[in-house]
């Protein structure tokens, strides 16, 4: 039996882009454009119905690895200014997190500041093993990179 647990977390990411808020908004609101930057796995499927109450579904994952399903429901949309949505993430058949995401777009000079806030309930520690593995892999990759650079410098 799975022992149940919930970890709550909030994190905020800010970015600045040298284009108008309308341009950034379009990259989120049109399926064709969103696919260019959002999904990163080959063979992933993506559907977007961008309106309040509409849904977005993303399904994909690394080759030979688990399938991630990301199901979104848009809760609030203010064109060129704000998008609020809820989404849950499943790994294969297991729900691993449920979140509220708020995207705020603010005109700043000729560009746009994007403020992304995710408030999530992470369930039963399911993200843990893989996150750890992935984190470890990044560290190892960096180590190999550093060693190779050193080897080149020495040669």
């Amino acid at each position, binding site marked *: 039996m799975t*022992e*149940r*647990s*919930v*970890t709550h*977390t909030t*994190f905020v*990411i800010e*970015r600045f*882009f*040298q*284009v108008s808020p*309308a*341009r*950034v*908004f*379009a*990259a989120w*609101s*049109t*399926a*064709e*454009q969103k696919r*260019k*930057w*959002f999904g*990163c796995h080959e063979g992933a499927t993506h559907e977007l119905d*961008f309106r309040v109450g509409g849904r977005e579904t993303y399904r994909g994952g690394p080759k030979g690895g688990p399938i991630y399903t990301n199901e979104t429901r848009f809760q609030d949309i203010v064109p060129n200014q704000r998008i609020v949505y809820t989404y849950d993430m499943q790994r294969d058949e297991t729900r691993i*997190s449920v979140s509220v995401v708020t995207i705020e777009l603010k005109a700043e000079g000729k560009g746009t500041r*994007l403020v*992304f806030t*995710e408030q*999530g309930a*992470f369930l*039963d*520690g399911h*993200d*843990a093993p*893989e*996150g*750890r593995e*992935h*984190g470890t892999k990044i560290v190892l990759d960096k180590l190999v990179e550093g060693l190779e650079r050193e080897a080149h410098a020495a040669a």
Partner: protein
Amino acid sequence: MFQALADPTRRVMIERLSRGPASVSELAGPLSMSLPAVMQHLSVLETSGLVRSEKAGRVRTCRLEPAALRAAEQWIAERRASWERCFDRLGDYLAEHPDEPESKE
């Protein structure tokens, strides 16, 4: 690990240990439960790798395993990192296509 941290009693124990090593009876002090019950929580924490303990004479001393705690933060850090990578791609995309029609749909 998160199962180990999910229990309020075990979080109290972790909090106490974050201030430094403690004996089992020191850990049990603020908790209103029997010593065997405390030992049981301790064994969950040890199994998860969060805590280790050593017995010297009749006293068992417990301490935090900091590397394990860092791992606990790792999975949320990973979610954040995957968004950061996403926004890197968004930045690249917008830089390459600053004037693409703003809406086709």
